[in-house]
């Protein structure tokens, strides 16, 4: 079966500065791809390049994005609009980014349905919303639909945003740190509810998170990003239990574990995007680094089935 989303050699950035570099991956129906990497490595930029909405300011510098086999860049504005919400949806970090603070939540649900399905009555929207609210732990359907976003708690508002993204049962959801604004207990709940919802609707997802726990729980596949590149991608078990890339190893050892000592941090800062050249981007922070790494041309190598690594020193993971 053809993948739902094919990202081919995608490079993207802002105002001519390249942030995301040569990203390649496929996402199949029903699959959850988790993206990890330290702050500023280009995770959000990659997701924005896929959605490419007016106001996100992200430029695609090269490469292709195919969704359901169609090249998104060749579609008309109206076709792109119809895909958004109906087939592809976004969950933002903050509910403020999803919901207009001065319109009632019910109206925003209703207009989402009406903009895709024509004349939809409030009662019909209410039934749809109630079904999703139910699965995501929101009772009091009518009170919420009749409220303004600022009248809900942060956790509730974010759940509403999740429900709104799921309203039309999209095939793909892009979630950029969907739970980072919540406190840890609520975070766990929302993650579980999103997973349950995802299962019942068979949605594929791309989930960005700083939290290894969230990614470990939700993802089937994990991609590790560094300096705008995907440096390692593979199924969750492989990445978590047998990481190959030196950066992934460093990242995993930086996750605090109960009962273990302090995590081992990674020295130094990630490179500045304007000065990334060819060669390995992790070069100056890598403990396995050798002379030839500086000029190593980045070609991903498949070390096991569907487990790709972007590192020239085969001897360290072979």
């Amino acid at each position, binding site marked *: 079966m053809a993948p739902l989303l094919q990202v081919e050699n995608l490079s993207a950035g802002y105002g001519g500065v390249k942030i995301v570099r040569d990203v390649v991956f496929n996402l199949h129906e029903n699959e959850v791809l988790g993206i990890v990497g330290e702050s500023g490595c280009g995770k959000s930029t990659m997701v924005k390049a896929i959605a490419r*909405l007016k106001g996100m300011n992200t430029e695609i510098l090269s490469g292709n994005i195919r969704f359901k086999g169609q090249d998104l860049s060749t579609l008309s504005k109206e076709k792109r609009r119809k895909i958004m919400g109906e087939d592809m949806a976004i969950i933002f970090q903050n509910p403020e980014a999803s919901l207009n603070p001065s319109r009632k939540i019910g109206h925003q649900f209703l207009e989402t349905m009406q903009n895709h399905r024509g004349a939809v009555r409030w009662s019909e929207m209410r039934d749809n919303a109630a079904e999703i609210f139910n699965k995501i732990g929101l009772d009091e359907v009518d009170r919420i639909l009749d409220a303004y976003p600022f009248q809900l708690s942060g956790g509730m508002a974010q759940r509403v945003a999740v429900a709104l993204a799921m309203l039309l049962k999209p095939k793909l959801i892009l979630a950029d740190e969907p739970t980072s604004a919540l406190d840890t207990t609520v975070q766990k709940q929302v993650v579980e509810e999103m997973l349950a919802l995802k299962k019942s609707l068979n949605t594929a997802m791309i989930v960005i998170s700083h939290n290894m726990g969230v990614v470990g729980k939700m993802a089937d596949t994990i991609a590790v990003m560094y300096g705008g590149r995907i440096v390692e991608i593979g199924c969750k078990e492989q990445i978590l239990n047998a990481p190959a890339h030196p950066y992934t190893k460093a990242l995993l050892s930086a996750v605090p574990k109960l009962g273990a000592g302090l995590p081992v941090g990674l020295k130094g800062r990630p490179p500045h995007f304007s000065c990334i050249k060819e060669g390995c981007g992790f070069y100056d922070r890598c403990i396995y680094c050798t002379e030839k790494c500086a000029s190593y041309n980045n070609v991903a190598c498949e070390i096991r089935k569907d487990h790709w690594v972007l590192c020239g020193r085969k001897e360290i993971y072979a």
Partner: protein
Amino acid sequence: MYKSIAKRLLQFIPVLLGITFMTFALMAIAPGDAATVRLSAGGTTPTPEMVAALQAEMGLDRPFTLQYFSWLVNFLSGDLGNSYFGNTPVMDKIFQALPFTLMMAALSMVLTLAVSIPLGIYTAVRRDKWDDFLIRGLTFVGNAVPNFTIAILLIYFFALKLRWFPVLATRDPIGAILPAVTLAIVMSSRYIRQVRAAVLDELAKDYVVGARARGIKEKTILYKHVLKNVMVTIITLTAISIGSLLAGTVVVESIFNWPGLGSMVMEAIGRRDYPVIQGFVVWVAIAYMMVNLIADISYTWFNPKIRDI
């Protein structure tokens, strides 16, 4: 809600007292005096005795606090006094001029909103395109040119050259059109810029990208989301404009010889006709406060976060 409206209405009382007292005080310290002006109207210079006699007759020789107090007592019983000239009740004079002022205020306000809301939105959507530059250039000119110049140009072209309107058509509703257009040109120049800025501000908000992510049409985003939030700006602008329009517009009214409140008060000031000036001030104060109250009430309608005024 009703409670806070009642509270606001009660606050009118001290404001009104303060404003009328201040006007009274200013008139008392201003140079020139009503009796002299009235006696010199015939072209002769009055003797000091004649002036003193008339001052006593008009009650102007009393201490000014006493004058204010007696004015206040009359005002509370609904009497604003009589004009010094022709003895017409001030109330009658105001009600004579008011319809003309209201007509022009309504006409110019409707014209302004009808032009500047669509153009403000349009220039925001077409930001930095040639038509945005063109319209913004025109609003810049409209802002910089004084209103009497605009009035004279309009008279020259539409009354003298094209003969669509009479040059001096006082009292006839058709005479309201050119002065109203003059005011509308000046106000629209400001409004278009402000509406444009407010729309751009709103379009930059996060929720707009969020709405696009749900596949909401640009038109819906503009008219159902953005415009609702921009209405607050528009109401503020409108309230300020209506307030000053209800006071009459001196320059434009005198150019077009339009018998509104502006003309009335200019004449009264020239003649030191204190009761008329005082009556005018009362009207302006009440009009401003009412307009602001209505504006504040309508804010709550467009911005649900404001629930108390």
